[in-house]
């Protein structure tokens, strides 16, 4: 530093202070000792820094903790990695939301407790009916959270893998009738057989979920490429088989004759191995609450 460049030229405010308070003459490098006020200011600054650090980290962790305690498993979009890997890799961009033709995929919010911005499917409100044929959400995912085929280093849980590529009923007449999906996202289960119309031997007439229901589905008889509202497609069937009739996957569910505990014969929907867990049966079930539900992340146990 040259002789002409005096340190007190540097800060006008320091210069002003120097002229008002007499400072003991010292070498150019020596600093005046910090005043009590300065020290207090520095201390307060530290306290504020600690406060903000705590606040930000606390807020971040509060967003994470519900995940640790999450009890209910959520249905993720098709092709989702196992929950732990899924949460690690999802970048929360919502591209899967954007491509879904029936808008089955929603993004989680702060209080949902399973990761702000991660996608999930509420099957009762709007199930994935594979209207897109190609599982577009997997195609859209930029991070491989949703995949057609898992990379080798990720294991496949026992029973999660589908025995065969599922045949999509809608594509049955196409040259390639299968759906590019290797693992199931859940398994449907008849949770309330006592209320099931098929078990009771009853028919169903009218709109499956009432006039106000906003859920949509593709009906091949109506338009292959344009899903319509379930409410716009009323039914009149002598024996209810809506879950079987509307299941998009071939051979995933059927009405079978079973024996009740008392030995009497009756009919009941029975879920089979090809079930991928899409949740259409849960959405379409006309009983409130649904007699059949998809158990997210469930594997085929038999």
């Amino acid at each position, binding site marked *: *530093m*040259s002789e*002409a*460049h005096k*340190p007190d*030229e*540097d*800060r*006008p405010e320091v210069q002003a202070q120097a002229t008002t308070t007499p400072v003991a003459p010292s070498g150019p490098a020596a600093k005046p000792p910090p005043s009590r006020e300065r020290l207090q200011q520095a201390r*307060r*600054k*530290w306290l*504020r*820094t600690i406060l*903000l*650090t705590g606040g*930000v*980290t606390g*807020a*971040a*962790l509060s*967003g*994470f903790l519900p*995940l640790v305690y999450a009890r209910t498993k959520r249905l993720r979009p098709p092709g989702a990695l196992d929950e*732990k*890997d899924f*949460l*690690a*890799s*999802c*970048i*929360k*961009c*919502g*591209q899967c*939301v*954007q*491509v879904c033709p029936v808008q089955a995929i929603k*993004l989680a*919010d*702060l*209080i949902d407790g399973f*990761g*702000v*911005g991660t996608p999930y499917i509420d099957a009762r409100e709007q199930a994935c009916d594979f209207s897109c044929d190609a599982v577009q959400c997997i195609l*859209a995912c*930029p*991070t*491989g959270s949703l995949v057609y085929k898992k*990379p080798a*280093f990720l294991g496949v849980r026992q029973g999660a893998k589908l025995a065969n590529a599922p045949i999509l009923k809608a594509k049955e007449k196409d040259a390639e009738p299968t759906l590019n999906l290797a693992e199931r996202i859940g398994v449907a289960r008849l949770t309330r057989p006592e209320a099931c119309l098929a078990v009771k031997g009853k028919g169903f007439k009218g709109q499956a979920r009432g006039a106000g229901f906003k859920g949509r589905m593709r009906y091949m008889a109506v338009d292959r490429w344009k899903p319509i509202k379930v409410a716009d497609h009323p039914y009149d069937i002598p024996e209810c088989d809506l879950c079987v009739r509307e299941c998009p996957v071939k051979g995933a569910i059927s009405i079978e004759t079973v024996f009740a505990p008392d030995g009497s014969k009756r009919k009941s929907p029975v879920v089979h191995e090809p079930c991928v867990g899409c949740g259409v049966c849960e959405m379409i079930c006309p009983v409130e609450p649904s007699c059949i539900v998809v158990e997210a992340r469930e594997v085929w146990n038999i």
Partner: protein
Amino acid sequence: MNQYLKNRFFDQIAVMFGREARKPAAISPVAQMFHTMKRATNKERLAATIREHHATGKKVHTWRNRRWAVLIIVNLMFTVSFWLDIQILEGALTASRFIGFHLIDLNSALQVMLAHKHIIVNLVIGTGTVLVLWILLGGRTFCSWVCPYHLLAEWAESIHLWLVKKKLVTDQAIDRRLRTGSWLVFAALAVATGYTVFEAISPTGILSRALIYGPGLALLWVLALLVFEVFFSRRAWCRYACPIGLTYGVVGIFSPLRVRYSLAECFHEGDCRKVCLVPHVLDTVIKGRAVDVEVPLGPDCTRCGLCVDTCPTGSLKFEVKGLNKLM
């Protein structure tokens, strides 16, 4: 780059990570001559000119208006792409596709890779594109020209400054090393928990998703941050906490686009430092500090252009390094 600028270059990187800006150890002879001459100027006449600047100077908002327009258009493109299903810019700020090309936010990609502990091919492609883009465009340009939180924070800042003027609040400064700390904490949390913890509270991601997919309760956190900034600490999130800013700041080290300070024209009025989000990059404008006659601002600069707008003498200008040599 001469030795004086080289020293400053590395000095400013340390400053970005949170060290206080300090006096340079060595100043080029030409710059030193300017400093000496400036000291010899008639102080009253200079003060009179500065007063005149402040009295007659019109408020210029050229760069601010351009920037706000870009920021709003980019964010609207996301929203419109989804709502009208026109597929120009699909996704959100964390990851998107621009006419089919993957674009992935660097900080989000880093978080995902740390949490997932695996390199994902698409992620690398998208991150590469974005890295090149932001090296060309200036690194933290992302903050001021794209990040929706930045715009809200600017509005909150004007309320804060009004309250300060009315002497109702004071700006509580916080240690800038906190940002480096939070970057490390969130990186460590991602590795330890296997979950992108930062994404849960990133106001950039929350706002971007809210704009595209509709509002959610997560916006309350953004509101809390804004309230903190209005009543307690000016621009606290962007200045002291946001790891995204630091990630893009590092990118900015290599960027040819920056704001250049020229010593000759400067009257050292200090208006630029008052409007700046990151005044430590403008320490060079303090009397006697410029190491050379022309000094580029450091990598933490968000290239927002507020200082360019506000400088009454035109000492601060945008430049692309090497472009004047080419032309």
